[in-house]
Protein backbone atom coordinates (compact mmCIF):
# COMPACT_ATOMS: atom_id res chain seq x y z
CA UNK A 1 0.00 0.00 0.00
CA UNK A 2 1.24 3.45 -0.85
CA UNK A 3 1.50 5.67 2.22
CA UNK A 4 1.54 9.47 2.00
CA UNK A 5 2.17 10.23 5.65
CA UNK A 6 3.25 8.24 8.70
CA UNK A 7 2.02 9.86 11.90
CA UNK A 8 3.80 8.81 15.07
CA UNK A 9 1.40 9.09 17.99
CA UNK A 10 -2.33 8.27 18.12
CA UNK A 11 -3.14 10.58 20.99
CA UNK A 12 -5.49 13.48 20.49
CA UNK A 13 -2.84 15.49 18.59
CA UNK A 14 -1.66 12.72 16.26
CA UNK A 15 -5.20 11.45 15.71
CA UNK A 16 -6.55 14.94 14.86
CA UNK A 17 -3.70 15.47 12.40
CA UNK A 18 -4.29 12.04 10.83
CA UNK A 19 -8.03 12.77 10.60
CA UNK A 20 -7.40 16.15 8.95
CA UNK A 21 -5.05 14.59 6.41
CA UNK A 22 -7.38 11.69 5.67
CA UNK A 23 -10.17 14.24 5.05
CA UNK A 24 -7.92 15.68 2.34
CA UNK A 25 -7.57 12.25 0.73
CA UNK A 26 -4.12 11.39 2.10
CA UNK A 27 -3.24 7.80 2.86
CA UNK A 28 -2.14 7.85 6.46
CA UNK A 29 -0.74 5.28 8.88
CA UNK A 30 -0.77 6.18 12.56
CA UNK A 31 1.62 4.37 14.90
CA UNK A 32 0.69 4.46 18.56
CA UNK A 33 2.93 3.88 21.57
CA UNK A 34 2.91 1.12 24.16
CA UNK A 35 -0.01 0.56 26.54
CA UNK A 36 1.92 1.83 29.56
CA UNK A 37 3.17 5.03 27.92
CA UNK A 38 1.98 8.24 29.57
CA UNK A 39 -1.18 9.29 27.76
CA UNK A 40 -2.31 12.87 28.19
CA UNK A 41 -5.11 12.20 25.68
CA UNK A 42 -6.70 9.71 28.06
CA UNK A 43 -6.07 11.57 31.31
CA UNK A 44 -7.06 15.15 30.54
CA UNK A 45 -9.89 17.27 31.88
CA UNK A 46 -11.81 17.89 28.63
CA UNK A 47 -12.00 21.66 28.45
CA UNK A 48 -12.20 23.43 25.09
CA UNK A 49 -10.80 26.54 26.63
CA UNK A 50 -9.98 30.05 25.51
CA UNK A 51 -9.67 32.33 28.53
CA UNK A 52 -6.18 32.86 29.84
CA UNK A 53 -4.57 30.93 26.97
CA UNK A 54 -1.66 32.79 25.43
CA UNK A 55 -2.10 35.83 27.65
CA UNK A 56 1.58 36.48 26.92
CA UNK A 57 1.61 35.04 23.39
CA UNK A 58 -0.77 36.80 20.97
CA UNK A 59 -0.38 34.20 18.20
CA UNK A 60 -1.31 31.39 20.60
CA UNK A 61 -4.29 33.34 21.88
CA UNK A 62 -5.48 33.87 18.28
CA UNK A 63 -4.94 30.20 17.34
CA UNK A 64 -6.93 29.11 20.40
CA UNK A 65 -9.83 31.40 19.49
CA UNK A 66 -9.74 30.12 15.92
CA UNK A 67 -9.90 26.52 17.12
CA UNK A 68 -12.66 27.32 19.60
CA UNK A 69 -14.72 28.83 16.75
CA UNK A 70 -14.02 25.83 14.48
CA UNK A 71 -15.02 23.35 17.21
CA UNK A 72 -18.81 23.17 16.67
CA UNK A 73 -18.39 22.38 12.97
CA UNK A 74 -15.45 20.06 13.64
CA UNK A 75 -17.47 18.12 16.19
CA UNK A 76 -20.51 17.90 13.91
CA UNK A 77 -18.54 16.52 10.95
CA UNK A 78 -16.40 14.17 13.06
CA UNK A 79 -19.42 12.81 14.87
CA UNK A 80 -21.11 12.14 11.50
CA UNK A 81 -18.10 10.43 9.91
CA UNK A 82 -17.33 8.34 12.99
CA UNK A 83 -21.05 7.65 13.55
CA UNK A 84 -20.35 8.29 17.20
CA UNK A 85 -21.62 10.48 20.00
CA UNK A 86 -19.34 13.28 21.20
CA UNK A 87 -20.72 15.18 24.20
CA UNK A 88 -19.72 18.81 23.62
CA UNK A 89 -21.16 22.10 24.83
CA UNK A 90 -20.07 25.70 24.54
CA UNK A 91 -22.00 27.67 27.16
CA UNK A 92 -18.99 29.76 28.16
CA UNK A 93 -16.70 28.95 31.07
CA UNK A 94 -15.84 30.13 34.55
CA UNK A 95 -12.67 30.57 36.55
CA UNK A 96 -13.75 30.81 40.18
CA UNK A 97 -11.99 33.34 42.40
CA UNK A 98 -11.79 32.50 46.11
CA UNK A 99 -10.27 35.75 47.36
CA UNK A 100 -9.94 39.40 46.36
CA UNK A 101 -6.35 38.63 45.36
CA UNK A 102 -7.43 35.84 43.01
CA UNK A 103 -10.14 38.11 41.57
CA UNK A 104 -7.65 40.92 40.90
CA UNK A 105 -5.18 38.43 39.39
CA UNK A 106 -7.79 37.09 36.93
CA UNK A 107 -8.88 40.61 36.02
CA UNK A 108 -5.24 41.46 35.22
CA UNK A 109 -4.85 38.38 32.98
CA UNK A 110 -8.00 39.35 31.05
CA UNK A 111 -6.79 42.92 30.72
CA UNK A 112 -3.43 41.75 29.37
CA UNK A 113 -5.06 39.43 26.83
CA UNK A 114 -7.38 42.17 25.60
CA UNK A 115 -4.54 44.67 25.36
CA UNK A 116 -2.71 42.48 22.90
CA UNK A 117 -5.58 42.77 20.46
CA UNK A 118 -7.95 39.97 21.45
CA UNK A 119 -11.63 40.88 21.58
CA UNK A 120 -13.01 41.53 25.03
CA UNK A 121 -14.97 38.33 25.36
CA UNK A 122 -13.88 37.58 28.92
CA UNK A 123 -15.46 39.52 31.75
CA UNK A 124 -15.28 39.55 35.51
CA UNK A 125 -18.50 38.46 37.24
CA UNK A 126 -19.18 39.45 40.82
CA UNK A 127 -20.62 37.06 43.34
CA UNK A 128 -24.22 38.24 43.04
CA UNK A 129 -24.30 37.79 39.27
CA UNK A 130 -22.53 34.44 39.60
CA UNK A 131 -25.24 33.22 41.97
CA UNK A 132 -27.83 33.96 39.27
CA UNK A 133 -25.82 31.95 36.73
CA UNK A 134 -25.70 28.94 39.07
CA UNK A 135 -29.21 28.70 40.56
CA UNK A 136 -28.92 25.01 41.50
CA UNK A 137 -26.00 25.45 43.88
CA UNK A 138 -25.06 27.50 46.88
CA UNK A 139 -21.64 29.14 46.67
CA UNK A 140 -19.21 28.91 49.54
CA UNK A 141 -18.50 32.04 51.60
CA UNK A 142 -15.01 32.46 50.08
CA UNK A 143 -16.28 32.88 46.51
CA UNK A 144 -15.70 36.51 45.50
CA UNK A 145 -16.69 36.07 41.86
CA UNK A 146 -15.43 34.53 38.66
CA UNK A 147 -13.99 35.29 35.31
CA UNK A 148 -16.39 34.30 32.50
CA UNK A 149 -15.48 33.77 28.85
CA UNK A 150 -18.38 33.15 26.50
CA UNK A 151 -16.19 31.17 24.06
CA UNK A 152 -15.26 28.41 26.51
CA UNK A 153 -16.72 24.94 26.33
CA UNK A 154 -16.10 21.33 27.27
CA UNK A 155 -16.12 17.90 25.69
CA UNK A 156 -15.87 14.26 26.71
CA UNK A 157 -12.21 13.79 25.74
CA UNK A 158 -12.44 10.00 25.58
CA UNK A 159 -15.34 10.16 23.14
CA UNK A 160 -13.33 12.67 21.11
CA UNK A 161 -10.31 10.37 20.94
CA UNK A 162 -12.40 7.31 20.06
CA UNK A 163 -14.26 9.24 17.34
CA UNK A 164 -10.98 10.46 15.81
CA UNK A 165 -9.64 6.90 15.73
CA UNK A 166 -12.83 5.61 14.14
CA UNK A 167 -12.95 8.42 11.58
CA UNK A 168 -9.34 7.77 10.50
CA UNK A 169 -10.31 4.16 9.74
CA UNK A 170 -13.56 5.15 8.00
CA UNK A 171 -11.57 7.51 5.78
CA UNK A 172 -9.23 4.71 4.72
CA UNK A 173 -6.37 5.29 7.16
CA UNK A 174 -4.67 2.71 9.35
CA UNK A 175 -3.82 2.79 13.06
CA UNK A 176 -1.30 0.40 14.58
CA UNK A 177 -1.57 0.29 18.36
CA UNK A 178 1.27 -0.94 20.60
CA UNK A 179 3.78 0.12 17.97
CA UNK A 180 6.31 2.35 19.70
CA UNK A 181 8.70 3.65 17.07
CA UNK A 182 12.41 3.10 17.69
CA UNK A 183 13.86 5.42 15.09
CA UNK A 184 13.22 7.44 11.97
CA UNK A 185 15.84 7.30 9.26
CA UNK A 186 15.95 9.48 6.17
CA UNK A 187 16.06 7.51 2.90
CA UNK A 188 15.82 8.55 -0.70
CA UNK A 189 12.36 10.02 -1.29
CA UNK A 190 11.33 10.11 2.35
CA UNK A 191 11.77 8.30 5.62
CA UNK A 192 11.92 4.80 7.00
CA UNK A 193 10.20 4.31 10.33
CA UNK A 194 11.38 1.34 12.38
CA UNK A 195 9.49 -0.36 15.19
CA UNK A 196 7.58 -3.51 16.19
CA UNK A 197 5.37 -3.10 13.11
CA UNK A 198 8.48 -3.68 10.99
CA UNK A 199 9.66 -0.99 8.62
CA UNK A 200 7.40 1.49 6.93
CA UNK A 201 8.32 4.09 4.37
CA UNK A 202 6.66 7.34 3.38
CA UNK A 203 7.63 10.70 1.88
CA UNK A 204 6.36 12.47 5.01
CA UNK A 205 6.55 11.76 8.72
CA UNK A 206 4.78 13.71 11.44
CA UNK A 207 5.89 13.12 15.02
CA UNK A 208 3.11 13.84 17.53
CA UNK A 209 4.28 11.48 20.23
CA UNK A 210 3.80 13.75 23.22
CA UNK A 211 6.67 13.52 25.69
CA UNK A 212 8.37 10.88 23.50
CA UNK A 213 8.69 13.37 20.63
CA UNK A 214 12.17 14.84 21.32
CA UNK A 215 13.79 11.40 21.48
CA UNK A 216 12.52 10.71 17.95
CA UNK A 217 13.18 14.08 16.31
CA UNK A 218 16.37 15.26 17.97
CA UNK A 219 18.63 12.60 16.40
CA UNK A 220 17.60 14.22 13.10
CA UNK A 221 18.42 17.71 14.38
CA UNK A 222 14.81 18.78 14.97
CA UNK A 223 14.68 20.25 18.50
CA UNK A 224 11.36 20.00 20.39
CA UNK A 225 12.04 21.62 23.79
CA UNK A 226 9.40 20.48 26.28
CA UNK A 227 8.85 19.34 29.83
CA UNK A 228 6.24 17.27 31.61
CA UNK A 229 3.99 18.24 34.48
CA UNK A 230 1.77 15.94 36.50
CA UNK A 231 -1.89 16.74 36.97
CA UNK A 232 -4.24 14.80 39.24
CA UNK A 233 -7.99 14.71 38.78
CA UNK A 234 -10.90 13.51 40.93
CA UNK A 235 -14.29 12.45 39.62
CA UNK A 236 -17.53 12.06 41.55
CA UNK A 237 -20.48 9.76 41.08
CA UNK A 238 -23.16 10.88 38.62
CA UNK A 239 -25.48 13.44 40.12
CA UNK A 240 -28.38 15.52 38.82
CA UNK A 241 -27.24 18.57 36.80
CA UNK A 242 -25.99 21.39 39.02
CA UNK A 243 -23.29 23.10 36.93
CA UNK A 244 -24.51 24.64 33.65
CA UNK A 245 -21.04 26.08 32.93
CA UNK A 246 -17.71 24.29 32.78
CA UNK A 247 -15.10 25.80 35.02
CA UNK A 248 -11.37 25.68 35.24
CA UNK A 249 -10.90 22.81 37.68
CA UNK A 250 -14.60 22.08 38.13
CA UNK A 251 -17.00 20.79 35.50
CA UNK A 252 -19.98 18.49 35.33
CA UNK A 253 -19.95 16.10 32.39
CA UNK A 254 -22.98 15.34 30.25
CA UNK A 255 -23.25 12.04 32.13
CA UNK A 256 -23.54 13.86 35.46
CA UNK A 257 -20.11 13.18 36.97
CA UNK A 258 -18.31 16.18 38.45
CA UNK A 259 -14.65 16.41 37.52
CA UNK A 260 -12.35 18.18 39.93
CA UNK A 261 -8.87 19.13 38.85
CA UNK A 262 -6.08 19.57 38.48
CA UNK A 263 -2.77 19.77 40.25
CA UNK A 264 0.46 21.08 38.72
CA UNK A 265 3.36 19.00 39.95
CA UNK A 266 6.97 18.68 38.84
CA UNK A 267 6.83 14.90 39.04
CA UNK A 268 7.31 12.54 36.11
CA UNK A 269 5.27 9.50 37.16
CA UNK A 270 1.50 8.98 37.04
CA UNK A 271 0.89 7.85 40.61
CA UNK A 272 -1.72 9.63 42.74
CA UNK A 273 -1.40 11.07 46.23
CA UNK A 274 -3.79 11.53 49.14
CA UNK A 275 -2.38 15.04 49.66
CA UNK A 276 -3.49 16.10 46.18
CA UNK A 277 -6.90 14.48 46.58
CA UNK A 278 -7.35 16.51 49.77
CA UNK A 279 -6.21 19.73 48.15
CA UNK A 280 -8.52 19.28 45.15
CA UNK A 281 -11.52 18.29 47.24
CA UNK A 282 -10.99 21.20 49.63
CA UNK A 283 -10.93 23.78 46.86
CA UNK A 284 -14.01 22.26 45.18
CA UNK A 285 -16.00 22.30 48.42
CA UNK A 286 -14.91 25.88 49.14
CA UNK A 287 -16.58 26.76 45.81
CA UNK A 288 -19.64 24.52 46.25
CA UNK A 289 -19.97 23.14 49.81
CA UNK A 290 -22.73 20.67 48.81
CA UNK A 291 -20.13 18.75 46.76
CA UNK A 292 -18.94 17.46 50.12
CA UNK A 293 -21.83 14.99 50.05
CA UNK A 294 -20.97 13.66 46.57
CA UNK A 295 -19.03 10.40 46.52
CA UNK A 296 -15.69 10.30 44.73
CA UNK A 297 -15.41 7.29 42.47
CA UNK A 298 -11.94 7.70 41.00
CA UNK A 299 -8.68 9.64 41.12
CA UNK A 300 -6.05 9.57 38.43
CA UNK A 301 -2.97 11.37 37.20
CA UNK A 302 -1.67 12.30 33.77
CA UNK A 303 1.39 14.05 32.44
CA UNK A 304 0.94 17.33 30.62
CA UNK A 305 3.03 17.90 27.52
CA UNK A 306 4.41 21.38 28.00
CA UNK A 307 6.54 23.14 25.40
CA UNK A 308 9.02 25.22 27.42
CA UNK A 309 7.10 28.46 26.83
CA UNK A 310 3.71 26.66 27.03
CA UNK A 311 2.91 27.69 23.45
CA UNK A 312 2.38 24.93 20.85
CA UNK A 313 5.25 23.87 18.62
CA UNK A 314 4.61 23.11 14.94
CA UNK A 315 7.98 22.37 13.42
CA UNK A 316 9.28 21.42 10.01
CA UNK A 317 12.81 20.15 9.50
CA UNK A 318 15.00 22.25 7.22
CA UNK A 319 17.61 19.49 6.94
CA UNK A 320 15.07 16.81 6.09
CA UNK A 321 12.09 18.23 4.20
CA UNK A 322 8.99 16.18 4.91
CA UNK A 323 9.79 15.67 8.60
CA UNK A 324 7.35 17.51 10.88
CA UNK A 325 6.59 17.53 14.60
CA UNK A 326 3.76 18.87 16.71
CA UNK A 327 3.52 19.26 20.47
CA UNK A 328 1.19 21.25 22.67
CA UNK A 329 -0.45 21.37 26.07
CA UNK A 330 -4.00 21.83 24.78
CA UNK A 331 -4.54 19.02 22.30
CA UNK A 332 -8.29 18.95 22.96
CA UNK A 333 -8.90 22.68 22.50
CA UNK A 334 -6.65 22.76 19.45
CA UNK A 335 -8.02 19.56 17.85
CA UNK A 336 -10.25 21.53 15.48
CA UNK A 337 -7.48 23.76 14.18
CA UNK A 338 -5.11 20.79 14.00
CA UNK A 339 -7.53 18.96 11.71
CA UNK A 340 -8.46 21.98 9.60
CA UNK A 341 -5.21 23.95 9.32
CA UNK A 342 -2.11 22.13 10.60
CA UNK A 343 -2.95 18.75 9.03
CA UNK A 344 -3.33 19.97 5.42
CA UNK A 345 -0.02 21.87 5.73
CA UNK A 346 1.93 18.96 7.21
CA UNK A 347 0.23 16.46 4.92
CA UNK A 348 0.79 18.09 1.58
CA UNK A 349 2.73 21.34 1.59
CA UNK A 350 4.71 23.42 4.06
CA UNK A 351 3.81 25.14 7.29
CA UNK A 352 2.41 28.54 6.28
CA UNK A 353 4.28 31.74 7.16
CA UNK A 354 1.56 32.82 9.60
CA UNK A 355 2.43 29.84 11.82
CA UNK A 356 6.06 31.01 12.15
CA UNK A 357 5.39 32.06 15.75
CA UNK A 358 4.98 28.35 16.56
CA UNK A 359 8.19 27.12 14.93
CA UNK A 360 10.84 25.49 17.08
CA UNK A 361 13.26 28.19 15.88
CA UNK A 362 11.82 30.55 18.51
CA UNK A 363 13.76 28.75 21.21
CA UNK A 364 17.07 29.82 19.63
CA UNK A 365 16.60 33.53 20.26
CA UNK A 366 19.33 33.76 22.90
CA UNK A 367 21.89 32.28 20.55
CA UNK A 368 21.10 34.86 17.85
CA UNK A 369 21.08 37.86 20.18
Amino acid at each position, binding site marked *: MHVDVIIIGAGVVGAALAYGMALKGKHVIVLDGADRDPRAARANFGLVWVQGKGSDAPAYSALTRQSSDLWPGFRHELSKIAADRIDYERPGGLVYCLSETEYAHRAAINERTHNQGAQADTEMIERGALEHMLPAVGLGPDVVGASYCKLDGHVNPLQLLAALHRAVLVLGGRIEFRSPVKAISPVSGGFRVIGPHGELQAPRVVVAAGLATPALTEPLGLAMPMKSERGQILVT*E*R*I*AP*ILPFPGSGLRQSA*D*GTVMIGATNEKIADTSVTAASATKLAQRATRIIP*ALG*SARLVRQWAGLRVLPLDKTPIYAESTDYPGLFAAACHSGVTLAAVHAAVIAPAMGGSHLPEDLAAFSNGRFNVQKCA
Partner: protein
Amino acid sequence: MFKSVHEKPGKASDMTVLVNGVEIGAWNGETVASVLLRAPGAGRGSTVSRTPRLPYCQMGVCFECLVIVDGNASMQGCLVPVAPGMRIESQHGPREISK
Protein backbone atom coordinates in the same frame (compact mmCIF):
# COMPACT_ATOMS: atom_id res chain seq x y z
CA MET B 1 -35.58 -14.51 38.01
CA PHE B 2 -32.92 -15.83 40.41
CA LYS B 3 -33.59 -17.88 43.52
CA SER B 4 -31.45 -17.96 46.67
CA VAL B 5 -29.45 -21.15 47.28
CA HIS B 6 -30.63 -20.93 50.88
CA GLU B 7 -34.28 -21.07 49.92
CA LYS B 8 -35.73 -24.43 50.99
CA PRO B 9 -39.41 -25.47 51.24
CA GLY B 10 -40.66 -25.03 54.78
CA LYS B 11 -37.55 -23.10 55.92
CA ALA B 12 -37.95 -19.45 56.91
CA SER B 13 -35.55 -16.77 55.68
CA ASP B 14 -33.21 -15.07 58.18
CA MET B 15 -34.91 -11.70 57.80
CA THR B 16 -37.35 -9.64 55.79
CA VAL B 17 -36.50 -6.48 53.83
CA LEU B 18 -38.71 -4.13 51.83
CA VAL B 19 -38.09 -3.76 48.11
CA ASN B 20 -40.22 -0.93 46.69
CA GLY B 21 -42.59 -1.45 49.59
CA VAL B 22 -42.95 -5.22 49.10
CA GLU B 23 -41.63 -7.62 51.75
CA ILE B 24 -39.07 -10.13 50.56
CA GLY B 25 -37.05 -12.73 52.47
CA ALA B 26 -33.29 -12.31 52.77
CA TRP B 27 -30.42 -14.26 54.32
CA ASN B 28 -27.56 -13.25 56.61
CA GLY B 29 -24.45 -12.20 54.67
CA GLU B 30 -26.08 -11.46 51.37
CA THR B 31 -26.03 -8.08 49.67
CA VAL B 32 -28.74 -5.70 48.58
CA ALA B 33 -27.79 -6.43 44.95
CA SER B 34 -28.39 -10.13 45.43
CA VAL B 35 -31.86 -9.42 46.83
CA LEU B 36 -32.58 -7.17 43.84
CA LEU B 37 -31.80 -10.04 41.48
CA ARG B 38 -34.78 -12.02 42.78
CA ALA B 39 -37.21 -9.14 43.41
CA PRO B 40 -39.61 -8.73 40.50
CA GLY B 41 -39.39 -5.33 38.76
CA ALA B 42 -36.54 -4.05 40.92
CA GLY B 43 -34.39 -2.75 38.08
CA ARG B 44 -33.55 0.88 37.54
CA GLY B 45 -33.15 3.22 34.58
CA SER B 46 -29.61 4.12 33.57
CA THR B 47 -28.87 7.74 34.47
CA VAL B 48 -27.19 8.12 31.08
CA SER B 49 -29.20 6.18 28.52
CA ARG B 50 -32.41 5.62 30.55
CA THR B 51 -32.32 1.96 29.54
CA PRO B 52 -33.24 -0.67 32.17
CA ARG B 53 -30.47 -2.04 34.36
CA LEU B 54 -29.96 -4.82 36.91
CA PRO B 55 -26.98 -5.54 39.20
CA TYR B 56 -24.10 -6.90 37.14
CA CYS B 57 -20.54 -7.20 38.44
CA GLN B 58 -21.38 -7.86 42.14
CA MET B 59 -17.99 -6.47 43.16
CA GLY B 60 -18.24 -2.71 43.24
CA VAL B 61 -16.93 -1.65 39.86
CA CYS B 62 -19.79 -1.42 37.35
CA PHE B 63 -22.24 0.80 39.26
CA GLU B 64 -25.21 -0.96 37.61
CA CYS B 65 -26.79 -1.77 40.99
CA LEU B 66 -27.23 1.83 42.22
CA VAL B 67 -30.18 1.89 44.55
CA ILE B 68 -31.78 3.89 47.36
CA VAL B 69 -31.12 2.18 50.72
CA ASP B 70 -32.93 3.56 53.77
CA GLY B 71 -33.29 6.88 51.98
CA ASN B 72 -29.67 7.17 50.79
CA ALA B 73 -29.49 7.39 46.98
CA SER B 74 -26.82 6.00 44.65
CA MET B 75 -25.70 3.27 47.03
CA GLN B 76 -23.88 0.43 45.33
CA GLY B 77 -26.20 -2.44 46.25
CA CYS B 78 -23.48 -5.05 45.84
CA LEU B 79 -21.41 -3.44 48.61
CA VAL B 80 -24.20 -3.14 51.16
CA PRO B 81 -25.07 -6.18 53.34
CA VAL B 82 -28.77 -6.59 54.07
CA ALA B 83 -30.22 -5.84 57.50
CA PRO B 84 -33.63 -6.73 58.92
CA GLY B 85 -36.34 -4.28 57.87
CA MET B 86 -34.07 -2.45 55.41
CA ARG B 87 -35.97 -0.22 52.97
CA ILE B 88 -34.67 -0.71 49.42
CA GLU B 89 -36.07 1.41 46.59
CA SER B 90 -35.31 1.49 42.87
CA GLN B 91 -33.57 4.68 41.80
CA HIS B 92 -34.69 6.30 38.59
CA GLY B 93 -32.44 9.09 37.41
CA PRO B 94 -29.32 10.56 39.00
CA ARG B 95 -28.94 11.34 42.66
CA GLU B 96 -29.73 14.90 43.66
CA ILE B 97 -27.42 16.65 46.06
CA SER B 98 -28.87 19.29 48.32
CA LYS B 99 -28.14 22.96 47.76
